[in-house]
């Protein structure tokens, strides 16, 4: 018996040792853009879109699992592998696109910080510069271990959405029912909404971040079984949070008066009649999510680019040794935060929409490179995709690409 307890404790210890990358990556996925999409889904269509969360979770798991497996087996980041296998020119173009895409994403996150704190009557001219400074200092003065701990705390804070979802007292029976019953309305708005939910869920930068984080964590093929569980747990956590966001908005807005909302802050205000706490928690959740994503995105981008292009990188190095890394990191934050303060509101909303379009255009390339890489036996050895999983991956990737491109098309159409 004692032996079993000892073994159980060993497994828990190993799990905790590899935990972090998967949970963090999946949770950052519920950033300002994601929260808006889920709120819109709930506000406009109530509980009907809930069934999509299950397939979305599966797609998320399939892609995330590939990245963390590649990281554990090769010990190299995704941009490293792309560089080594596909050469400098492709890597350069991809990195240039990634910087552009992520810059618009960073703007979206800082806009999320601004609007969420404006709900608490804090001017964006105070909140955004302070947040930018905090993000910059956190990473430059911290190290990987301490930063990861802070990120894990941020993951836990998503619980605010679960509580605010419960406070709204939604119709649980209906929520449960529609979670497993697919409803397909032949209504263009509804279809747009479903595509949007998939489109915001899987972003290019996540794949790069996850794989590098797994490598940084020192996960080896031997511990990989635990790492895989961690990835799955993370994906499920993310979609549980998404579920509660949809449910909160369904209970608070849709059941009163179905309507379209424009910002996540508007959703928070919609929760007000259901108690001050529901509103506070929802807004605080938005702030947490935006700040969280704003801390990870610039860092992840700078890492990825420097890795791929062969520049010195890493927060553990002094400025003098890794100038391009720090320059890129600082620029992303300064430009991202600055845009929120200086650009006109309408232009900003368009930029944020644009970020989704660019995400969608880059994602197919990243996913295809991933599948090509993971099928290289000289890289992956016995860990390359088995045939059946390859089938699953290709189907998922084609599905994601199809839905994402559809999402891009309709966003572009909506922008005109």
């Amino acid at each position, binding site marked *: 018996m004692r032996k079993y307890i000892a073994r159980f404790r060993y497994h828990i210890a190993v799990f905790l*040792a590899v935990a972090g990358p998967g949970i963090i990556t999946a949770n950052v996925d519920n950033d300002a853009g994601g929260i808006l999409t889920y709120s819109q889904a709930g506000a406009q269509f109530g509980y009907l879109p809930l069934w999509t969360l299950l397939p979305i979770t599966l797609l998320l798991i399939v892609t995330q699992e590939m990245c963390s497996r590649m990281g554990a087996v*090769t*010990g*190299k980041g995704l941009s490293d592998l792309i*560089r*080594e296998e596909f*050469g*400098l*020119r492709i*890597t*350069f173009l991809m990195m240039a696109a990634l910087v552009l895409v992520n810059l618009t994403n960073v703007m979206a996150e800082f806009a999320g910080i601004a609007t969420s704190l404006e709900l608490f009557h804090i001017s964006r001219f105070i909140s955004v510069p302070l947040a930018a400074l905090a993000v910059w200092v956190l990473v430059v003065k911290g190290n990987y271990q301490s930063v990861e701990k802070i990120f894990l705390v941020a993951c836990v804070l998503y619980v605010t959405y679960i509580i605010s979802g419960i406070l709204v007292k939604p119709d649980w029976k209906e929520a449960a029912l529609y979670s497993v019953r697919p409803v397909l309305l032949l209504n263009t708005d509804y279809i747009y909404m479903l595509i949007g939910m998939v489109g915001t869920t899987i972003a290019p930068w996540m794949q790069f971040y996850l794989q590098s984080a797994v490598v940084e964590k*020192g996960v*080896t093929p*031997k511990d990989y079984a635990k790492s895989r569980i961690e990835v799955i747990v993370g994906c499920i956590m993310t979609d549980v949070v998404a579920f509660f966001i949809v449910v909160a908005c369904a209970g608070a807005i849709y059941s009163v008066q179905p309507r379209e909302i424009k910002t996540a802050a508007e959703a928070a205000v919609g929760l007000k009649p259901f108690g001050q706490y529901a509103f506070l928690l929802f807004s605080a959740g938005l702030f947490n999510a935006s700040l969280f994503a704003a801390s990870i995105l610039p860092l992840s981008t700078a890492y990825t680019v420097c890795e791929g*292009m*062969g520049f*010195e990188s890493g927060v553990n190095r002094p400025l003098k040794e890794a100038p391009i890394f720090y320059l890129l990191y600082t620029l992303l934050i300064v430009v991202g935060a600055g845009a929120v303060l200086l650009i006109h509101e309408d232009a900003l909303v368009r930029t944020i929409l644009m970020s989704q379009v660019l995400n969608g255009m880059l994602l197919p390339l990243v996913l295809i490179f991933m599948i090509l890489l993971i099928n290289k036996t000289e890289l992956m050895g016995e860990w390359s995709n088995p045939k059946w999983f390859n089938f699953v991956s290709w189907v998922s990737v084609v599905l994601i690409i199809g839905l994402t491109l559809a999402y891009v098309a309709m966003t572009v159409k909506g922008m005109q």
Partner: protein
Amino acid sequence: MADTSLLYFTELVSMPVYDVTGHRIGRIKDAAMVPLVHPSRIDRFLMGGTDAWLTIRYDQVASINLNRGITLSDEQLVPYHDDEYMLRIARDLFDQQIIDVNGRKVVRVNDITMEVHHEHGRDTLSVLEVDIGVRSIFRRLLQGVAPPRLIRRLQHRIPPNSIRWDLANVLEPDPLRRLRLNISYSKLEEMHPADLADIVEELSPAEREAIFETIDSEVAADALTEVDPKMQASILEALEPEKAADIVEEMAPDEAADLLNELEDQTYEEILDEMDSAPKTEVRELLEFEEDTAGGLMNTEYVALHENASVMDALAALRGNEDLLESLNTLFLVDAEERLCGTIPLARLFVASGGAKLKDLTAETMIQVTVDERQDRVTELFDKYNLMTMPVVDEEGKLAGVITADDIISVLRAK
């Protein structure tokens, strides 16, 4: 003028090849060195243009010129077949990571700078530098898009960043291929262990193992001590038990014990089995202690003398323990039952006469702890009495080991 005798690999690729009569017969696709034959000469050129690639030996080339391309002196070309002794530049070096031995870091290859030599009436190329900075990225991006002359003119604004070929260490995890390509990691043995550890941490697990597998065990032990503790265990577990045992034997016993504690039971036993008996006994004894006690912190590398010994005896003992000298700063005195009875700061030996009794040189106060003393208490004592070294005794007062300030620094850093 010096610049004209240089040729970048990006310029060599797709250079036209002319036969003796001046007809163009193809373009260069890649080039290869055969390191077992010559460490830096481009030995073969691979030419495309016909159905299959052809191999041009270096002695079949008459001239190489940036404007006029390559002219052959002998057109008896053989079809290309992959030969394991070839290090192909575009395939095996471009975009891969190598170690910059001088700059002590891992870098990625963007381009190669070669030198054109004119000798025995023909031109040969030899690899001069590995290019890593922004300038070489610029060349790669414009390669084939802009004419080489223009690229050369434009790149002058960008500062160059290159490392000498003989200071670049190619990484190859496969041992057989390493042998065929004459790759060794012996250059790394000259580095400071802490620098080597930093480099190793940046590599992939397979490359890491390759390095520890081949370098000298003593260097490997020093470097392994400096590697991130989480990574240490996975490196040792990946090595053959004999090699792992050789490395562990070279480590300080306390560090070896800490490291072995991190391993899975099976690997741990395998490595201990392979170790020589003397270091094995020491490590086994240390493994008995709890990790966060004085016994777990201490190591058993110290110099102890009998209480009646003289300065002359002490010097003789030091001569017999030369491998300890680098970090030794205290001697210990023990009685006939090996019980600790005094400590002597090493520097006092220099000012004492040769015949002086060590007993008269001991420090006024002797701070010591027992093996089961808690780690927190130990660090407290180090701080309070400004110690460099502290003896550890067992229940009977016998000297069991010694804790040094670097052990304490590691403990505090880990908090």
